[in-house]
């Protein structure tokens, strides 16, 4: 129980010099809180990016045809991919740009001609009405589902479901509106109009599929399925690998997360330096404290304190000081993070491990920088120390 006693003693000497102790702790407080705030912001933004990518659909592979003159991927071709092992669902897309008009209001939007499975593959949410159905595709129905922005532009606050719009001069009935997804990486997911695949082929006068979305059953199978798709495409279009690309959503996610992780590490590193500076502050004050308490050390040694006792006393004092600073820093860091996330709408993500690591690091900094002053105190000659004024 001597440790407990030493901690009590350390608390007492910290309380005895409140202002100085606070100023000493300030370095650690700022260090720990900035570590927590910066890493939380870094992790928050990487989480936000991951979420955005995931909104495109989970376990998603995308086949893009760049040169449709050479690579003519028909709707029938895409059905072959559905039969591959591990593929859950596919959605072929015929795309283009069209002008849509409601009365006198007109706008240019991206056309996506696809099937009902697009909804599951891309995880598209419908805010009003319904999505495209297989029957619409089969009977070439002149119906349309609008992206959130498109609906906003054409109809304002009105409910577009059941209304008619002109797509390149042809009249279409609006059956649904997509929920807003927000844009990611330069593409707006909301400035679109979705038509049944067969109808879109007529509008664009093109039967070839430009894009095919393939959803895997699980994330583990993604790489394997990707290889399988590439092999199939190679067989279908030999010597034209440059004309299409297969794109793994996981790759994008990995790239993005490596970028944000580097950012987070950098921010954490900078904050860590301030924690180190705080440690030097502790060393400074402990050295002052040792020379100020030389007499006390002499008295303690005279009545039988061993070197180890004195060393431990000052080490514990440094550790308690930095632990206190660490705890206050954690509170401050979490508070600042919360304020930033509310006021600046930053996405902030706390993790227990970061808090723990920041705290342990502050404790270690305190102990490491406490060793030198403490050993200085422990080595004092009792006679000199008693005579010291």
């Amino acid at each position, binding site marked *: 129980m001597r440790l407990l006693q030493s901690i009590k003693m350390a608390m007492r000497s910290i309380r005895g010099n409140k202002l100085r102790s606070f100023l000493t702790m300030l370095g650690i407080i700022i260090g720990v809180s900035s570590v927590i705030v910066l890493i939380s912001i870094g992790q928050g933004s990487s989480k936000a990016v991951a979420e955005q990518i995931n909104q495109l659909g989970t376990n998603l592979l995308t086949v893009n045809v760049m040169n449709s003159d050479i690579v003519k991927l028909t709707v029938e071709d895409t059905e072959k991919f559905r039969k591959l092992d591990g593929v859950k669902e596919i959605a072929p897309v015929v795309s283009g740009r069209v002008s849509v008009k409601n009365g006198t209001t007109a706008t240019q939007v991206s056309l996506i001609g696809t099937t009902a499975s697009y909804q599951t593959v891309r995880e598209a949410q419908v805010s009003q009405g319904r999505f495209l159905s297989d029957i619409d595709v089969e009977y070439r129905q002149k119906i349309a589902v609008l992206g959130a922005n498109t609906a906003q532009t054409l109809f304002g606050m009105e409910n577009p479901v059941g209304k008619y719009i002109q797509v390149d001069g042809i009249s279409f009935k609006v059956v649904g509106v997509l929920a807003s997804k927000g844009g990611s990486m330069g593409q707006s997911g909301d400035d679109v109009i979705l038509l049944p695949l067969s109808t879109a082929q007529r509008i664009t006068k093109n039967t070839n599929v430009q894009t095919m979305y393939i959803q895997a059953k699980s994330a583990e199978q993604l790489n394997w399925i990707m290889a399988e798709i590439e092999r199939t495409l190679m067989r279908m279009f030999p010597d034209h690998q440059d004309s299409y690309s297969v794109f793994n959503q996981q790759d994008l996610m990995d790239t993005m997360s490596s970028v944000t992780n580097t950012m987070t590490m950098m921010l954490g590193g900078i904050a860590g330096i301030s924690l180190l500076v705080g440690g030097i502050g502790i060393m400074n004050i402990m050295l002052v404290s040792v020379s100020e308490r030389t007499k006390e050390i002499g008295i303690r040694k005279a*009545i*039988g304190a061993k070197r180890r006792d004195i060393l431990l006393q000052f080490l514990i004092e440094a550790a308690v000081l930095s632990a206190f600073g660490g705890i206050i820093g954690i509170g401050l860091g979490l508070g600042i993070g919360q304020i930033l996330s509310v006021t600046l709408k930053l996405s902030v993500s706390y993790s227990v491990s970061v808090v723990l690591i920041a705290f342990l690091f502050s404790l270690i900094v305190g102990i490491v920088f406490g060793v030198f002053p403490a050993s200085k105190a422990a080595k004092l000659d009792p*006679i000199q120390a008693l005579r010291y004024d």
Partner: protein
Amino acid sequence: MAEATEEGSRQMAKSIIEIQNMTKTYRLGGEVVQALQGISLQIHSGDFLAIVGPSGSGKSTFMNMIGCLDRPDAGSYFLDGKEIARLNDNELAAIRNEKIGFIFQNFFLLPRLTALENVELPLLYRGMKIKERQQIAQECLKKVGLIERAHHLPSQLSGGQQQRVAIARALVGNPPILLADEPTGALDSKTSQEIINIMKGLNEQGHTIIIITHDWEVAKQAKRIVRIQDGRLFESRGDFIEASSVD
């Protein structure tokens, strides 16, 4: 112990301190000072010894030797039957803790600790449990008549009271020797006499007491007086038998 204080039987008593040919030199600003030049001294259990001498006589150096705060260059020092001249710092600390109770001129209480906590301190370094420690410390404060001031800080006590706390601290480890360095140096004559009376009482209870002083009024109340001058020791007050006739 009672017999030990009786006349005649003292020389038969066990000597608790035995110093043979102790020398110590140190450098002071490039000058070599011979602080102790072959001092020999025997102190018996139950003694009340005063060491007197002018400043610069080697008195403080000798006290540091007796108090195991320093090591001699040559010579032997047996304390309670143990050679301690060649022990290392930690072993010396343990000896100080167990064998010697220090009483200093300026009391040297820790200002942030209460009287009781100050008294507990030697036991803390012995690794004793808090309950036991507090109980013994309270008993010692009772002995010096300060139990009702146990939770006061040193700054809230008078000089005499602080010195009594210091005496309680010296007593708490139940050491065979109490070593007092100018214990009355910072006190007025009335309080000084109170402190001396407490020490006399402790001596009657069997504690061996060594006082270092330059105050003759204090020294002459001891049973035995030795004088240090120029690093040499003199028995200035005859032998032990005559010591009881002082006053």
